[in-house]
């Protein structure tokens, strides 16, 4: 079978890329070895965060953030997005000056989305925060979405434009023949003009088959969620100098993250948890929010996520093959970028250019470095 574009990986970036490509009229196939949204895209913390982004990511993240505000309409679906604002709490003067320094730098670059707040305003916005919190920084447009729903909304929107999704089909082999690609899976064989690697924690394997090496590592960021709590926190909450990260969803459940990693067994699609680290996250949460003492954990889990050495993703064209593109290695903060990365790739593929500076995200950026 012939396609204009084949995407390896049915996570949020694969599904979003399929949406933008098929909308642009390309006949697109997504190959997903498990099911769409099975891994990091379906089980992440759902944070839609612009606050605290690496400067290199700010332009993409800002664009993504404005798209999230109307994404449900665009996709004619339900991503579960709620604009709630995100506050990173400061617990001392050092934190407050960290915030100030960053905002000064952002202002210099022409960005005004991060705003410092004082203790009184923090109390107004988060009345249940412990009283030793001295202030914080807020980004108003931030919020959360429901990961599986968002990924699935992109997939269904892509299907409405004619994209095909094959679940339970694993990539076996890639060959570039002339300018085109032959894609062989455990079930069938396809020809395509363009190949896109959105393989998440497995992206180094796909990249290698495409001729590009990449120093990807993978891990298992852990999460836990409580049974419903009475509503006590509207904004999504983080901290400047502590591993605090939680959000209370509209349904009352509280999702606690914080970046602690469990153990990843990539070959078997499995992760195991490190309770000591989860315990620390529980401790931090109840210290900042004493109301959480009475919360009960209902579920704990970890997803399989790809990390790059500089914690920045790979986005853009391949370097050792023609008509090859990558979008992976989002290092546990790629979910928010979903609505923009797919479009950037689609622009690159259909017009050969994009208005964003993708140099920080080149796949060969590590080649000259000693890691």
């Amino acid at each position, binding site marked *: 079978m012939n396609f204009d574009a084949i995407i390896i990986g049915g996570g949020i970036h694969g599904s979003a890329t399929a949406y933008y490509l098929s909308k642009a009229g390309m006949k697109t196939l997504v190959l997903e070895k498990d*099911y769409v949204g099975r891994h990091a895209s379906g089980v992440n913390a759902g944070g839609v965060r612009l606050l605290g982004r690496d400067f290199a990511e700010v332009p993409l993240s800002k664009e993504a953030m404005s798209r999230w505000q109307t994404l449900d309409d665009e996709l004619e679906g339900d991503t579960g997005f709620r604009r709630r604002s995100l506050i990173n709490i400061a617990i001392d003067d050092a934190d407050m000056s960290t915030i100030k320094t960053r905002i000064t730098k952002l202002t210099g670059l022409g960005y005004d989305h991060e705003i410092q707040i004082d203790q009184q305003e923090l109390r107004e916005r988060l009345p249940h925060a412990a009283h030793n919190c001295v202030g914080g920084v807020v980004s108003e447009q931030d919020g959360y979405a429901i990961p599986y729903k968002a990924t699935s909304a992109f997939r269904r929107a892509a299907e409405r434009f004619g994209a095909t999704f094959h679940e339970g089909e694993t990539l076996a082999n890639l060959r570039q023949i002339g300018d085109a690609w032959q894609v062989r899976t455990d079930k069938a064989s396809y020809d395509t003009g363009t190949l896109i690697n959105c393989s998440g924690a497995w992206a180094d394997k796909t990249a290698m088959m495409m001729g590009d090496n990449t120093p990807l590592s993978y891990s298992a960021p852990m999460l836990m969620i409580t049974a419903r709590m009475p509503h006590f926190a509207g904004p999504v909450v983080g901290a400047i100098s502590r591993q605090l990260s939680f959000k209370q969803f509209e349904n009352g459940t509280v999702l606690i993250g914080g970046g602690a990693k469990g153990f990843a067994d990539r070959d078997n699609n499995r992760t195991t948890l490190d309770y000591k680290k989860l315990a620390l996250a529980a401790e931090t949460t109840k210290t900042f929010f004493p109301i959480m003492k009475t919360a009960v954990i209902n579920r704990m889990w970890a997803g399989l996520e790809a990390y790059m050495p500089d914690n920045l993703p790979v986005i853009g064209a391949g370097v050792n093959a023609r008509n090859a593109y990558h979008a992976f290695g989002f290092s546990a903060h790629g979910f928010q970028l979903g609505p923009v990365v797919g479009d950037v790739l689609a622009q690159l593929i259909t017009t050969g250019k994009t208005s964003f500076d993708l140099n920080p995200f080149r796949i060969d950026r590590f080649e000259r470095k000693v890691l």
Partner: protein
Amino acid sequence: MSDIFDIVIIGAGPAGMSAALEAAQQGASVAVLDRKATPGGQIYRDVTQSPLLDPSVLGSEYTEGAELVEAFMEADIDRHQNADVWHIGETGEVLYSQDNQTRRLVARELIISPGAMERPFPIEGWHLPGVMTAGSAQVMLKSDGMVKDGAIFAGTGPLLYLIVAQYLRLGVTVNAVVDTTPAGGVVRAMQYIGGALRKPAYLIKGLMLLNEIHRAGVPIFRHASNLSVLGESKSVGLQFEQDGRTHSVNADHIFLHQGVIPNLNMTRALGIEHHWAEQQLCWTPTLDDWGQSSIPHIAVVGDAAGIQGAEAARHAGRLAALKAMNKLGKLSEASLQQQSSDHLRAMKSFKAFRSFLDAYYAPTPEHRIPAASNTLACRCEEQTMGQLRAGFEQGAKDPNALKALTRCGMGPCQGRQCGHTVSELLAVWQNKPVSDIGYYRLRSPQRLLSVDELSQFQNIKPAKKPAEVSA
């Protein structure tokens, strides 16, 4: 005393207690963790301290458990009651809550017997106050001597008749028995009659129970179908069909039952291999004759290993203990074979008998797989069959995808009350065998765990010392 044991057993029902006794007898260091305040499991619940004046009304199958419990209490075993296991690590680390604290011990070999639970009975109105399970009636009777007059008992399976008979012996009134065992049960089960004839006493007991209920004048509606609970905010009665006619019987309390299935959250969270058992219509851990699971140091015994009943569980427990001793290098292969043979033979005859029972009391599809779109499939998150169907049509074909899309199975029961329904619904909708559909990916904790308790994990406590244990 260290907190490392040769054999750690989870669950002190007939399987767990028998395993512990065998292991202790063979000279192993043994710890038993049990969630309840007293050993006995569900079947022998409070058998040595019954709240009833005359526990013999509960039948000899209950009272004969006392001997096992007493032997268990006297043996050289570290017994930990009120010990609620919330995590078992692949290495053999066991974490459990006791007095709102997490404690830990380590097992060289693990024998787990988390027991059975009643099969979900997803009919219209099954979530209403006043609707409980027949098993709950027995639990309340055994533990608290608590009964409910004027209830309806509805469904199928031997336990249903047993509890009704127990109620009647105690002078508790029963409004009606609505029996959903479909006609032709005997014909269906006939191919297994050989197995049934190996346990004639059980067959006769079953018939005697029915006879006892009949003689007491309780209306019995046989071959009933299409059950639904009446009532808006609580149960006011049960509606059903019999011989093409619709009946409704008033009652503010209804006890439902359609057999039991393995309580599999622990075995699933461990990542033990499971399969769909066609005969029992449930997910079951895949095990060898000694209960050995796909994880080398873990055995599963008792009804969690597939429903076999209390007597079979005793043999299964012994077998797993013998095998564990063999794996520990404390029992030779020859001794293992020799000491196992009687138990293996007994297990075989129980299995044959079970085939007959399973065929006779097979729960009908209409009471397992809801057809009405407004019937709740997931009680916790209040997801109806219709909402699940919509999720399926949006592309969620896997139980985990459906869970992520609809929240079905995300509530406090962690899928216990909807997991089987979801597997079967997805199988029917895709016209696939249930075995191709799979089940929820489950994880620890296997029950709600307080943030406060988890946060103290840094200073995790070892198991209580034997002196504290016996207190």
